[in-house]
């Protein structure tokens, strides 16, 4: 009996420590169009351990499902930043931002206006 309890306790301990295989997270990522969507999702999904990445044009939210044992939100975020998209609280480097297509310069207000209607098409 005692052993059993110990085993159980150990198991509970392990499961508490075990990282979630299907961790979910939502982070805000800036962008303006469907091209941005592709770029953002591609950057996220190519991070090892990310299982699903869907960016919503209206809400600017990137919903992620990833394996916590293989990656962390930070590294996904870093990869998104690397392709030039600002994420929650962190700006992409100027160099990375410049690499996005001209029509995707989401920091520019004129460009934002141009794309204003796009989200509504879906």
């Amino acid at each position, binding site marked *: 009996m005692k052993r059993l309890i110990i085993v159980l306790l150990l198991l509970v301990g392990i499961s508490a420590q075990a990282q979630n295989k299907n961790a979910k997270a939502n982070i805000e990522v800036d962008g303006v169009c469907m091209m941005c969507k592709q770029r953002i999702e591609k950057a996220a999904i190519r991070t090892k351990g990310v299982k*699903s990445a869907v960016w919503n044009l209206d809400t600017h939210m990137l919903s992620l499902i990833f394996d916590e044992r293989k990656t962390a939100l930070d590294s996904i975020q870093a990869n998104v930043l690397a392709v030039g998209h600002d994420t929650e609280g962190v700006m992409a480097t100027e160099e990375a931002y410049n690499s996005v297509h001209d029509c995707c310069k989401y920091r520019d207000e004129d460009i934002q206006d141009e794309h204003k209607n796009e989200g509504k098409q879906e």
Partner: protein
Amino acid sequence: MRLILFILLVLPIGIMGQETLEGVIFDGTSGEGLFGANVYWLHTEIGAVTDMDGKFRLPYEDTYTELVISYIGYTTDTLTIAGPAIITHSLKAKSDLDEVTVSARKKATARSYLKAENMIMVSSDELLKAACCNLSESFETNPSIDVNFADAVTGTRQIQMLGLKSPNILIATENIPSIRGAAQTYGLSFIPGTWVESIQITKGAGSVVNGFESITGQINAELQKPSKDFSFYQNLYAANNGRRELNSHINTRVNEKWETGFYLHGNLRDGHHDKNNDNFLDMPRGKQVNLLNRWQYTNPEKGMVSFINFRYMDDLNESGQIHSNDSVDGDAGGHGHGGGNSNSQPLWRSEVETQRFDVSSKLGWVNPEIPYQSLGVQTAFSWHDQESYFGLNDYDITHTSFYGNLVYNSIISDSRHKIKTGVSFTYDGYDELVNDDEYDRKENSVGAFFEYSYDNLDALSLTAGVRADNHNLLGFFVTPRLHVKYSPWEKSALRFSIGSGRRSANIFTENQQLFSTSRNINILDKDGKIYGLDPEVAWNYGVSYLQGFNLLGRKADITFDFYRTEFLNQVVVDWENPQNVRFYNLRGESYANSFQTEFNYTPFERFDIRLAYKYYDIQTDYLSGKLEKPLTPKNRIFANIGYETHEKESGSQWKFDVTYNWLDSQRYPSTETNPTQFSLPERSPTIGTINAQITKVFSPRFELYIGGENMTNVRQNNPIINAENPFATYFDTTFVYGPIFGSTYYTGLRYKIE
């Protein structure tokens, strides 16, 4: 000791017991879960953001009473909460955002740039371009599918893809194979056009998920869904050939989760026409009642969607001679089914009555936690009964069918690698009477499939599938299929596909026109399991290239398709001796090469042009040597022009659509041995037809249309050989290369309430 156990047990419960408030926030217009909405308790800092499905969870305390839900672009709502519970709430979009107009116009027909398969999506807008009437006629504005001319007896229009007839195509409704077996010949005319929401056409082998039967391609028709269709829809149609149709849809919500739709179709074809004076009706008369009741269940919290369908159909088709040859007045009455008056020759008549009953269901379950995991179960039962006679020939068939398919969808490592796997089961019972011979056949199969698809989100995507089936008559076999797409540069798609398919040929029901001839039926092989014949086995492979570009600042695209189908075995239907029709296993080779090029262009706003050219080279080794497939033109030209006026604020609009089809000469099956008055030249004349339609939309609720088919009144004058003596040798109605009736004009209306 016990205490520890007790604590261990209680601990999780205690954690769960903490009071929470859960709920789902929906978009008030689309009804979909709203992702990213802010939900918080008023005057606190406790809040949450909804997830992808619009769900949220918040801690709850008695002191919290007012819940604020806000989202940019939507009106903020504050709810009073009495206790911990599950709440659902819809947010309304702010009106100033509603007025945003969408400038890009969706194309009615589009080829995919992204999918691995060569798939053509046909929306309901395209289906409205030719107002008529059932699924077989829905393809008239689509160059990838060829629609044959109806013969005078069956009146049905069979379709072809890559130059081969519909039995080689897997035709499904909502991914359940439906136009097959006994329904092969008439089945497309048993699906009313207004029931169809959209059509997906896949050229080439297609997916393994829906079975092994497809050889040249797959066509899937999505039906109207109670949740999306109009709450009331009424369509009326009348044509000068005596065809009248009525379609009514009623859709209603039963409760939060259930919606139901009733779809009624009725038609009457009572034209009495004999324009070519051969004493045979130019088109059959008849009537049809067709009822469909659909139930849709949606439970977003559990991720469940389900459809249950019930359908009943009764169709009567009559054709043949109008009055006996020697009677003076027109009305001889009665069906001269073998009998007749003592001193006058009996009438050659034909009657086909079909009844069909279908029950099908689909159950889909998406894991709410992991949206890429889903499970689907499809089941379908159908009973199809045809009783018919054609002159002195009797033909009855009853086909009972059951289909079950279970599909599991998931990913491997990430969403670039998707898999579909599952098992399927089919049962088909055939009971046929061909004159005095009975044919009974039971077929069943169990199969498993696995399909992997990869999309690197750039240039490459592929779908590789394999299925293994064990069939009581076809044996155990493996069906592999592969589709690859690569985009070498922008707006391009280079595709390759290869795959195999097999099926048992239902020789009588697929070739029913043989009963309207004086030909004898000869089955030359005895050892096979299906009428003495072997199953058909074929490989299909092809390449396709699609390129989009700008022409004078406007969108254009061009496609080149080349496909080849090679039969390892085929049930050859040999019409080359006018005294008989022979069925035998392929001795030698049989192939179909098809080339198609298609050009789409929008030279100015709301004006679309589609041009296509097709070339078919279809050859089979007959007993009399290698011959081109009869009654199939080698070259075809297709042109379609559509124009819409600017849609006014009231919704009023004009729509114009014109389609031109040109068919090269077609080879007649040999009539060499017939006496000269009953023999035909080697080839038919060429044929060009024009169809046009004008639609006036008065408002989103009401529209009228008027149109014409075959407006230049092209006709095949003597479609029946030896029409004077239908009970004698040489009588044959199968040499149809063009329209028999000539031009047809029609008008109709559509009325709908959201």
